[in-house]
């Protein structure tokens, strides 16, 4: 039960972080991305739209996972 809550909390944090990262990818050109971001390139005005989409999808998947995991427990009828 405790592990479950920890997992849900972790999924929510990672999900929100990834969606924030996605927004950064969409909003900032490659030269303005933080140095540790994949795709950072000094002097480049290219926007890494695809990196943003990938981060957004994985972030969304984490939130959906947390949503299901924190739902009411089902008793199997089978």
């Amino acid at each position, binding site marked *: 039960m405790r592990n479950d809550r920890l997992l849900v909390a972790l999924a929510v944090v990672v999900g929100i972080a990834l969606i924030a990262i996605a927004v950064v990818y969409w909003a900032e050109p490659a030269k303005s991305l933080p140095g540790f971001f994949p795709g950072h390139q000094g002097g480049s005005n290219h926007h890494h739209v695809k990196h943003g989409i*990938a981060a957004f999808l994985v972030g969304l998947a984490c939130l959906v996972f947390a949503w299901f995991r924190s739902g009411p427990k089902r008793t199997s009828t089978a």
Partner: protein
Amino acid sequence: MIVASLISYPRAIALGLLQGVSELFPISSLGHSVILPRLLGWNIHQNDKYFLTFLVATHLATALVLLGFFWRDWLRILKGLGRSLRDRGIDPADADAKLGWLLVVGTIPAGILGLALEHKLRSVFASAQSAAIFLTLNGLLLAGAELLRRRAPQTAEDDDVRIARQVSWRDAVLVGAAQALALIPGFSRSGATMGGGLLVGLSNKDAARFAFLLATPIIGAAAILKLPELFGSDGDGVRGQALVGALCSAVTAYFAVRFLMRFFETQTLVPFAVYCFLAGLAATIYFAVQ
């Protein structure tokens, strides 16, 4: 003007007709669109911007046809997804919800791998020679899937219920990720997913159905993502040909999916394996001695 002469309207029709069939038949549309122009001496290169723009339109048409063909299924699947989100869980008896999430789970790895690897793989394996070699390997892959397949249990009357019962979450991830093979010209997306479906215990018919459902969001999303190129400067001089190609692609895609859904009720991947192996081998030898 130069662009128009490279993809003339007759060529656009031929490429569109070919695309509609080869995208859904497990024989690699990208491989064929690389090999055929080379065999016919057409000066078209798969990494040329105008050609990629042309392909965006034909892919979008194929995705729309798939969406239209399975629209009733998609409606049920979307309702199932909505129900599971509302209930915060997937009812074991709700096959539509389970199938919907299997498709989501299968699409995510394919999408991420596609976004990450598409450009690199297309650049590395751009030549017609490598496409011919991979087409041969695609034949072996299809034959291997038929040889190693598990016997499909008849667990339910309804196709979607059978798929939902037979495919686990792990299977969906693996089958979905296998779609990324199609980023290499010569390997087939539908071939990889149908083969994966057979390996996890689906019948040929159910594997084809799962492959087509799985292909719809990924082909559609890839096309929509590149749609701005069609309406931007890259589309100059090629939009008319792209429209004609897309219409031709839509017609053949419709007949292809209709044919395949009936074909796989009784038949296997073997004829496609034989075709890919022989056509790939013949093209490989031809390009080597040319």
